[in-house]
């Protein structure tokens, strides 16, 4: 094509742009490292988060009350939480409830919002406002709307950001060990 002719006045620019693009493609052409499905990893994250969070005393009726993790949004995510069901965190059994089975979201100890629809996420957050629920979302605006933890992905690895201000407002105490691992923390002590 005449366009790629080096003598054409823009030929050089186009060639440089193409070369750059090709390099971006070929540079990471090494063998694929082992990986795991996204929501399996996130479920494991959620399970681990609960180990670093203290709920106010009123959140549990007695020492036998289970820790309820509510998952709302995409139906397929429920499957990823199967390995978490029945595990124990700080002496309490973990129970996972998804979508239609969630009677009252304010009774959840953890609410994982997988919907990326902003309006739905905001609606869910409003429905638990003021309640000691560890709200976890997947969009950057989740923390703006009052969520406590938001997953982000960088370079295919899962990261998270924490809104400690929102946590403290509902008397959730997040261990500094977890805050240290977050990409960013709002309302840091």
């Amino acid at each position, binding site marked *: 094509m005449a366009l790629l002719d080096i003598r054409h006045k823009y030929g050089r620019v186009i060639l440089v742009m193409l070369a750059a693009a090709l390099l971006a493609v070929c540079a990471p052409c090494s063998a694929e490292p082992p990986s795991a499905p*996204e929501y399996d990893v996130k479920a494991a994250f959620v399970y681990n988060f609960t180990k670093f969070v203290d709920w106010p005393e009123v959140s549990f009726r007695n020492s036998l009350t289970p820790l309820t993790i509510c998952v709302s949004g995409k139906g397929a995510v429920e499957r990823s939480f199967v390995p978490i069901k029945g595990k124990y965190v700080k002496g309490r059994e973990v129970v996972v409830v998804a979508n239609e089975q969630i009677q009252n979201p304010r009774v959840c100890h953890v609410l994982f919002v997988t919907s990326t629809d902003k309006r739905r996420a905001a609606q869910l957050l409003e429905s638990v406002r003021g309640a000691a629920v560890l709200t976890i979302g997947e969009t950057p605006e989740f923390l703006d709307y009052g969520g406590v933890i938001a997953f982000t992905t960088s370079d295919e690895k899962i990261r998270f950001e924490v809104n400690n201000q929102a946590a403290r407002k509902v008397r959730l105490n997040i261990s500094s060990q977890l805050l240290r691992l977050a990409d960013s923390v709002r309302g840091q002590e």
Partner: protein
Amino acid sequence: MNMKITAKWLGSAYLLCVLLATVMPGYAAEGEKGADLTELDIESLMELDAQHVYGASKYSQKLSEAPSAVTIITSEDIRLFGYRTVADALRGVRGFHITNDRNYRYAGVRGFGRLGDYNSRMLVLIDGNRLNNGIDGNAPIGNDFPIDMDLIDRIEVIPGPGSSLYGSNAFFAVINVITKYDFDLRGAQVSGEAGSGRSFRGRVSGGLANDEGLGALVSATGFDSKGRSIYFREFDTPSTNGGWARNLDGERGRSFFGKVRYDDFTLLAAVSRRTKEIPTAPYETAFNDPRAKTRDTHGLLDLRFERDLGSNINLTARLYSNYWEFRGDYPEEGAPVVLNRDTFTSAGFGTEIKAVGQFIKGHRLTLGLDYRADLKRRMINEDVDPPAPEARLLKREDSRTTGIYLQDEITIIPSVIVSAGLRYDGSDCGHDMLSPRLAAIWSITPRTVLKAIYGRAFRSPNFYERMYGDGGATSKPNPRLNPETIQNYELVLEHLFLHAVRMQVSAFHYRIKNLITQQTDPADNLILYRNTGRVRAGGIEAEIEKRWASGAMGRFSYSYQKVESLDTAGDFPNSPKHLAKLHAVYPLLRKEVFGAMELLYIGTRATLSGGSAGDYLTANATLYGAKIWKSLDASMSVYNIFNRKYSDPAGVEHRMDVIPQEGRSFRIKLTYTF
């Protein structure tokens, strides 16, 4: 700056970013498939590469299940790249090119950007509401767009025929502009802009909500631009001011926006007016007459109900009303000069009900009913100065359209989806149309998707094309026009490489029949519209993008398209064969200040006279800082950095062959949130 040095600098900068990313450490730790992930601690989990499983839908890297190659322009893109209008944002999308006749902006898609089309072959929606007006089907994408850019949450660009869901006008693309909610802006916000051509813009917005689920976002914007003086070679005679249209490119407008939500209900209200001076003296108007101007007024009211009815069924119901008025003041050449005015109005209302859900296992069905009434459609023409005894009501006609559509996304096996859609449109003053779409989407691997798409779309002849005539002065009507149809075949390949490099390649071929074209009848020298014939086109598009954790981004796209008429010889007007676009974002100061650059190459476009508007390379750069001082966001943009003198082809109504475009211009924008 010298072209060679600039190119080398840009190329080197991009290469450096890429090399740095690959050299950076941090590879995946051991995480065999099937290992119990719950046994790993958080540090180890953070080392795993998370597969983007097919079906996972995310805001950034999405291997989309949509039967199309969608591009999403976010509010962050609008801020970082300094997009002033929807047209600016569309300019950066692969396969699109913008034409500016210094009155309106028109978008060409896949090489088709015919002059005199008024964006009628592209459906533009605001939150699902049709913006294409009921008279000439135009959809505003310039400063006449009714919503301030700061109130846009995202723009979804869906190329390809969309009539199987949306009906008429979704010929080449569907552009859905989605506006923000109150939770995107809590408190009050003030924004001010100043730019070249003595342009100023100011906005005041406020968002509030209470604890019972009631929220509201309101905003008001005003802008005024004096514009520049422009020289037109074709008018370089002593009697027409030596070719100079002095201070005739000005533009001003205001808009108001309100969005109230309560529970499952949302009420949207938007009203806007824009006045633009016309420097190009179209339709044989007097040159350099300051009274030449157009004024567009838009009004939209939309009440929407949306609820998830459990088990993945979503129901949306809408009731809407819209209003549009156009007023064009044209000083007609002659002695004495008579100021003639066209007033077009169109008001309408409509309702739409849509249900989406997994009614049957393995089938995701979309069922919709869309009723629209375009009432009070009127075209009035009158002499204003000196005033004629009475106005001429050219035409008045109401129209009602009913559309029913059904789409089924069938999961054949987990990695293969077939999407089949059909829409029926019945209009009481038009033709009954059937629009099908069929797509097969195959996830070859979790990182690779192949799509084969076929779609047919139509565009009904609009009121203006069928009815406009000014009593034999320049134009005459043609009520027997038929709808145009397009058949589009497309193959798309999307692949996600390692390290967040996303690539998309597509090849398309389309055929248009019964194309409605503006022509001059040699018998009486009047402009009219006819179903002239057939067009055949094909092309390929490729795009590659990489995002870094730091917020840096690089994206390059190239498209080749060839459009030809099967009935007339010569190059298809305003159709660039080559388009190349480069976008780069680089974080400068601890993720708070960003530098963004846009480099666009637009190929040569043939003009109506058989000449051409030359190819050009234009670059825009923006420096954006969030919260640089308390709650102040600031940005500084330079458009057309190299001050490249380029032109766009002119239309039938212009006496010049090409219209010169803006040289280098600046804009400073400050936004403060209370």
